């Protein structure tokens, strides 16, 4: 072979061998993920190198943690993970769709069709499907007061595929309220403003939304209050500890008094700053019962803490930077970088600040804030893997709500869209296509069925029965989805099963692209290091 002449160590796979390798890899990956899809999907247990346990139903997590090595599978997995980065959901569907496209194509290729023709068909079908989706989607008017019910339905649809039902329903309210809380008119939603904090404590159903901030550290002084009501919050980024000077300095003294004076001088600068804060506290808190809380991003050394504690101020040091931003959004006021011109305007307000101690860990809750633009989802669970599972689900749920608000439309779920699109492709589009590309359209249309098929399979239903009864309904002009419990057709609109428009769009867009690329490969060359060690 010609390649061998160029590089004797290179390995090569041609023509059908290369194609089949790709198809097999795509199908293999699909097999791994297919049991994940839908609310009835099963859980996978991942055991990391250090023996750590992770339980997941989320395709994205699974792909990330699985350490895939097959090059084709990596390519598909990357697309799916990219899908997650963009829209936060639909990873499993993407992998399934790509796998199914490959599987459908295999049939035609084995019958001697050229991949190129199939790919042309895919392209036509893709465009037609996207157009169809524009018609099919259900518009949602967002305006100033978004329809909470619709948002809840979308969030519930997403969350139920990640967690068991009771917990998913509880989280639905939490994520919807969280997104609505941080939403500002005329601005895009920044999900970073929702802090997720976890506590290893109680049960997973104790997860709740805190309108305010939860910090994962406490005050460091034993005499500070553990619980304070009606608090002014000073968010600051001022060093309240003695910094050694940059240059190499030394003191010279010749008796103990001089040394004492120097010790005092050393601290004076820091003390001045602390005194300024105390002055402000006295100004705003005199004559009322209000409290004063300082949350500092930099350090506060013990002598300063002591001074603050004596003045009745609760001080927290070394807050995380991202929390500083959130604190200002939640409590109001502004973050100060210097104590020189402190005014009461810089202060935020919180109705309640308290510390919660859990074993060795300390948590500070800043709650009851006025019109917050930031909030915290406090995840609780008895052990780490439960928490991690909820955390992933919450993230996806938040994204789903955000997508809905931004898309201003949703797509009917439970397989309804896929079936409708297939019927549209077969009945309308196929006739308009000339020549062999028709077969590509057909393959694409059948590949769409993978979602309802897998849903049925995971619920223990008969796949063929389900597909026939669903397509039958669609042919009569009823748009129906699959009822996971009974296998009967249902109206997803009535049941409140909605998917994100952008997620579906992304799946339809990226799936055929990757599938086409893989189909058009006719030679795989691996030069250099042999990754599969000879066995």
């Amino acid at each position, binding site marked *: 072979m010609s390649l061998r002449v160029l590089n004797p160590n290179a*390995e090569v*796979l041609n023509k059908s061998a290369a194609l*089949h*390798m790709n198809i*097999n*890899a795509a199908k*293999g990956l699909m*097999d*791994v993920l297919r*049991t994940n899809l839908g609310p009835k999907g*099963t*859980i*996978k*247990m*991942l*055991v*990391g*190198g*250090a*023996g750590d*346990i992770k*339980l997941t139903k989320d395709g994205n997590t699974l792909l990330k943690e*699985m*350490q*895939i*090595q*097959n090059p084709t*599978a990596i390519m598909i997995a990357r697309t799916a993970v990219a899908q997650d980065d963009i829209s936060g959901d639909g990873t499993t569907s993407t992998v399934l769709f790509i796998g199914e496209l490959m599987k459908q194509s295999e049939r035609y290729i084995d019958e001697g069709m050229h991949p190129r023709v199939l790919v042309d068909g895919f392209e036509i079908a893709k465009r037609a499907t996207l157009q169809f989706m524009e018609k099919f989607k259900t518009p949602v008017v967002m305006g100033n007061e978004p329809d909470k019910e619709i948002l809840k339905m979308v969030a519930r649809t997403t969350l139920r595929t990640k967690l068991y039902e009771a917990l998913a329903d509880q989280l639905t309210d939490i994520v919807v309220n969280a997104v609505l809380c941080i939403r500002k008119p005329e601005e895009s939603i920044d999900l970073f403003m929702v802090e997720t904090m976890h506590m*290893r*404590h*109680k*049960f997973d159903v104790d997860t709740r939304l805190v309108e305010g901030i939860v910090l994962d550290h406490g005050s460091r002084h*034993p005499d500070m209050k553990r619980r304070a009501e009606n608090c002014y919050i000073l968010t600051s980024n001022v060093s309240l500890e*003695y910094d*050694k*000077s940059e240059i190499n300095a*030394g*003191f*010279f*003294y*010749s*008796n*103990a*008094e001089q040394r*004492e004076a120097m*010790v005092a001088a050393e601290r004076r600068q820091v003390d001045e700053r602390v005194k300024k804060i105390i002055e402000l506290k006295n100004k705003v808190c005199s004559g009322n019962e209000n409290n004063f809380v300082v949350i500092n991003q930099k350090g506060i050394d*013990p*002598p300063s803490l*002591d001074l603050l504690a004596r003045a009745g101020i609760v001080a927290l040091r070394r807050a995380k930077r991202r929390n500083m931003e959130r604190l200002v959004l939640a409590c109001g006021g502004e973050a100060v970088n210097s104590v020189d011109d402190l005014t009461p305007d810089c202060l935020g307000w919180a109705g309640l600040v308290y510390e919660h101690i*859990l*074993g060795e860990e300390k948590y500070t809750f800043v709650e009851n804030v006025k019109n917050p633009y930031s909030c915290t989802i406090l995840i609780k669970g*008895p*052990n*780490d*893997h439960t928490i991690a599972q909820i955390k992933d689900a919450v993230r996806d749920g938040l994204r789903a709500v955000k997508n809905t608000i931004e898309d201003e439309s949703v797509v009917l779920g439970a397989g309804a869209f896929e079936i409708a699109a297939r019927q549209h492709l077969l009945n309308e589009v196929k006739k308009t296509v000339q020549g062999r590309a028709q077969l590509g359209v057909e393959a694409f249309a059948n590949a769409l069925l993978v979602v309802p098929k897998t849903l049925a399979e995971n619920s*223990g239903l008969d796949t063929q029965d389900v597909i026939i009864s669903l397509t039958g309904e669609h042919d009569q002009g009823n748009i129906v989805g699959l009822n996971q419990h009974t296998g009967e057709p249902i109206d997803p609109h009535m049941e409140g099963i909605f998917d994100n428009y952008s997620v579906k769009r992304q799946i339809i867009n990226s799936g055929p692209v990757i599938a086409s690329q893989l189909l058009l490969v006719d030679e795989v060359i691996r030069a250099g290091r*042999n990754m*599969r*060690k*000879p066995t």
Partner: protein
Amino acid sequence: MGFQMQPYGIQSMLKEGHKHLSGLDEAVIKNIDACKQLSAITRTSLGPNGMNKMVINHLDKLFVTNDAATIVNELEVQHPAARILVLASKAQQEEIGDGANLTISFSGELLQNAEELIRMGLHPSEIISGYTKGINKTVEILEELVEKGSENMDVRNKDQVISRMKAAVASKQFGQEDILCSLVADACIQVCPKNPANFNVDNVRVAKLLGGGLHNSTVVRGLVLKSDAVGSIKRVEKAKVAVFAGGVDTSATETKGTVLIHNAEQLENYSKTEEAKVEELIKAVADSGAKIIVSGAAVGEMALHFCERYKLMVLKISSKFELRRFCRTTGAVAMLKLSQPNPDDLGHVDSISVEEIGGVRVTVVKNEEGGNTVSTVVLRGSTDSILDDLERAVDDGVNTYKAMCRDSRIVPGAAATEIELAKRVKEFSYKETGLDQFAIAKFAESFEMVPRTLAENAGLNEMEIISSLYAGHASGNSKVGIDLEEGVCKDVSTLNVWDLYITKFFALKYAADAACTVLRVDQIIMAKPAGGPKRGDQPAGMDED
């Protein structure tokens, strides 16, 4: 060349060394098996007649205990499914501090029964739904079983406290529960704050001193420090205390200082000023009325000299937390620098003395009056492992006290609750129509594990006991439990064996959760174990538990 057609399936896609298990036989049944093995280990330790285990951990430390939390902690369970059970028991340990064994044993039993159901042909998802219904019903019934009038208790009444604590302590130290309970109850009641919900476990300390026996153990109102006083004054009574967190020595600057000396005279003067300075500081402390100086860091030689001269007792407590506790005991405020203390910052002790107990010099800080928030249980025992085990029993007792401060409701102990639950959940299962009724019935049967194990461990005939328990409950008395000493079934209100409702609640809930989690998994993907030094010769494989 290994680059022809790639093998089909997931195995080819993963990095080398990965393990992939899926399906009922490979994943579910194996997981159940591992969990069963684990619960078989802990089960024999359940209850007052439970056997002790000798566990040697990776540091070659020996543990002789029947405390399940310690056993599973030191076992270093490798199997992922069994790990879920361990995590559940840890959650129980953190939440309540007791009942870890019940969590593991019960979830082990649930899984064992699940295996039978799977072999019968039930799908795990049906078992999960049945178990979920079972636990929800159980929680309902458990609420009904709560002893009337127990929701209000006086947490300062020793008898009431002991009656609730006894079962927990007895399961760790059977036969010694009366002595231990009284000690723990005393210690807890002393430090119970005005609002009992704020009770902090950390305020009851345990000091283990080798020698003597359990009957020599006492409760000290205050602290017992395992160190000697620094100076020569070993005993002070009714005195004020000044606490310095930063050490008792000459002050120093953060920046490096250099003493500038030009001639011999200055050198001499420098030492003198230094001395004068220290004396001035110590004198200031002495003048403020303090008789005792407690330092959080080093005590300078020169400072010590002046302390002796002013007849001040000097203590050194290097642990920051210990120092905080000391402050809490005495009501002192820790000052950072050696300076004249404000009168408010001084604490008070009734007596502070260095005593020799069992060859160890300890400093006993006593504070009989109010405002005291720390108490110490001084445990005596002949060997280290006995002391460790006693300490764990005391810890369980203290945790139980904390739990009862939060929720004082009690349910009948000695397996009476379990049998009643078994009976009523079983009745419930008959009303269900779906396939999950089998799962609910098995869930009910799993409760029998507790009386069976209790009887087994006590050497009684388990079948006889269980049937007479059922007979007792069928006749309408829901409080019939096992009297382990006589080997018969009796009304537990005559035995006075009560369990805390909250302990049972969390233990059962965590157990059911863990069992369902294990059942939900149908695929396991294991990464290659990370490198690093391997302990021993055993491979860190799946079959280890």
